[in-house]
């Protein structure tokens, strides 16, 4: 099984590809990278919260169980869904790989 190596130029290139086109089309290698970042339940992981329909998105996180408040980030507000997707990508990279995404 492939592993994400945050120090490799290839991984950096894949992150840059996603940043440039967050909704695709994706190359085969970006598809595989996204499968690794998206495998499993998202509870407890960074997700996107639409705080104003069609206009505003933030990052957030569900609590460990249903019935508890969703944590919604107060620090970053996105007015573009693609920008929110990119921010979520970077946060998920950190959560899955354990190291920061090399692309800012």
């Amino acid at each position, binding site marked *: 099984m492939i592993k994400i190596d945050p120090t490799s130029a290839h991984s950096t290139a894949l992150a840059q590809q996603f940043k440039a086109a967050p*909704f695709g089309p994706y190359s085969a290698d970006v598809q595989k990278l996204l499968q690794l970042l*998206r495998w499993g339940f998202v509870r407890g992981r960074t997700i996107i919260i639409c705080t104003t*329909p069609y206009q505003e998105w933030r990052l957030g996180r569900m609590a460990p169980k249903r*019935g508890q408040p*969703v944590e919604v980030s107060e620090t970053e507000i996105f007015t573009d869904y693609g920008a929110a997707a990119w921010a979520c990508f970077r946060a998920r990279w950190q959560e899955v790989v354990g190291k920061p995404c090399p692309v800012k």
Partner: protein
Amino acid sequence: MSERILGYTDRLSAVPGDVVNFKISAPLGGKFKARLVRLICGDDSPEGPGFKSKNIDSEIDGTYPARQQPILAGSYIWVTARQPFDLPNFTIQAMIWPTLPGNGKPQAILGSYDAASGSGYALYVGEDGCLTFRAGQNPPVSTGVKLLARHWYEVYAVFDAGTGRVTIGHNMMLPYHGMQQSVSETQMLSAAMGEGGRFLIAAWNDDKFAAAHFNGKIDSPRVSARALKPAEIERLRDLPLDVELAQYVVAAWDFSRGMSTVKVTDVSGNRYHGRSINLPTRAMTGWNWDSTDFSWQSKPEHYGAIHFHDDDLYDCGWQTDFTLTIPADLKSGVYCAHVWQKTPDGGKIEDYIPFFVRPARGTATAPLALLIPTASYLAYANQQMISSWWFDELASGKFATMNAVDQYLEEHESFGLSVYDEHNDGSGVCYSSHLRPILNMRPKTDLWQFNADTHLTDWLEKKKIPYDVITDDDLHAEGVEVLRPYRCVMTGTHPEYYSKAMLDALQAYTNGGGRLMYMGANGFYWRIAYHAGLPGVIEHRRAEDGMRAWFSESGEYYMSFTGEMSGLWARNGRPPNMLVGNAFAAQGFVESVPYHRTPESQDPRAAFIFEGIGVDEVIGDFGTVGGGAAGWEIDRADTRLGTPPHALIVAAATDFPDTYHWVNEEMNHTHSAVNGDTNPRVRCDMMFFETPNGGAVFSTGSISYGGALAHDGYKNNVSRLTENVVKRFVDPTPF
């Protein structure tokens, strides 16, 4: 998140003269206002047609006292008789299959315990997952051995008033090496138990409410008026009851009786029957199921279990706040009670509570009927796929994105679930009702199901095409008779869930000369059942195959409401292709694409469809649902699956990206060519064919199609094409 004003109706479909009862929970105190609106379009997206409604003067216009009404989720059995279970000596026993032992909450199995008064007795799974007994103010008695999830146990508590001793224990049905199969614990009780409350199974009392809901299956519960020995307890597992011990049995409930009902039958001879509350799942494999039979009707004695969940919800049971008697002159259509309250900061909280008005039975006020897919609305009601699906992002091709409804449902767990979700214990949800607020069956929400279908009402209104509205509920109850008055029936964008009565009715309609416009995709896919007696609820089992949110357990493919096998209609011998030519091919939710005409589109039989549309014209490279007319979920033709041999594929979309995923029921063996960029079966076919007796079918093959109708002020080729089809389909000239 701030609280919402919420409501529901006691019926989704009504004819003139019917009374619709509205049940409202208004959180801000004081008063709330209500008025009737006819809903034209619920799409308030920036690129969409905009929210459109028309105020209708009616008897509901007015101001009402506000009150909050609670939702009490969690299923259990209430045994009506109370006094017989106040016993000096007793044994209570059951077979259990716990699913959430050790979840930090008590989970009652059976007894009369009332937490409010601290009296009565109950056998339960303790907060730590160990079998526990509690009686009155005495300290709880625990085995100290945690139960394993999803394993069958015989559990019991034996109380001897003469000695004051209570013995509890469990016997594990599946032995494991190194694990003690039978465990027991005996202690003295010094304090009196007290009277307790109602005798409940799968919950205990908290004054007049139920609490400590059990998660898992319970089978063969018994109460005996004697302190039985361990061997005697085992002899009472089976039915008929042991002849020697039967004289001591106060109640022996046989859950395999009346599995289609809410009745719970005591077979001891004492008739201490009960009823289930909030629809725990019945027709579940019992402790003795051994795979000799897979249908509960064939071998009911193997289906003596009921699966209870702490998040089951059938009917909120709210009080009625106002009623509407449907006026004789109220035009058929989609209506909402618009309710709202002003907030202290000058804002407003509001809700639109939808219902559907049809003409008087047996009559039509237009040649066209829009068939509202209420069964599919129920299937998705309050869905929480973001948290239920471990594969949600892999399936959707996007990072999980919560809207306000998703967030509210996540933060308020008592609204009941959809058949796309898993219960808190990970078991699939089989029942869904509309007797609760359904937050995603609303205008101004995601363009999916109800709100996406308002693209059709919006377009019909804009084009001044007369139409009536009928619903799945009517189709199921009245069959083809509800369709007969119409020359043409138009479906919603995603009529996915069908009962046999509904499918039979549509097939009879098209075979009898009716014209069917299938305006979506992934339709007629899953088999469901309506309940014969309980209003407003459907059942579904995720049997065998298909794009399943969860798997039904082995032996649990047959629905409790009717005994029919559920799952795919294609696996029940009725692939959707037989009705509409198309069947579900793939799904993807990132972008939609356009159609291109095929050579078959120039067949003279299809000329009417393309009047005013060029041979090389790209069709639908626009729309509010993914930016194209072909997408989200898509269908394709296949004569091997039942597409009529004379069907014309008049247009097709094939340029789907990797985020479109092929349906798994066509995949007999795993491989990696499953996405739109590599799999030629990921395609969308637009189709036309004639049916017997002058009828015809038109299939768009796409859920996104409706989102393209309003593009460019409704002057576009999707709108033109649709109008061409409507005009011909309402023309009585036989095909």
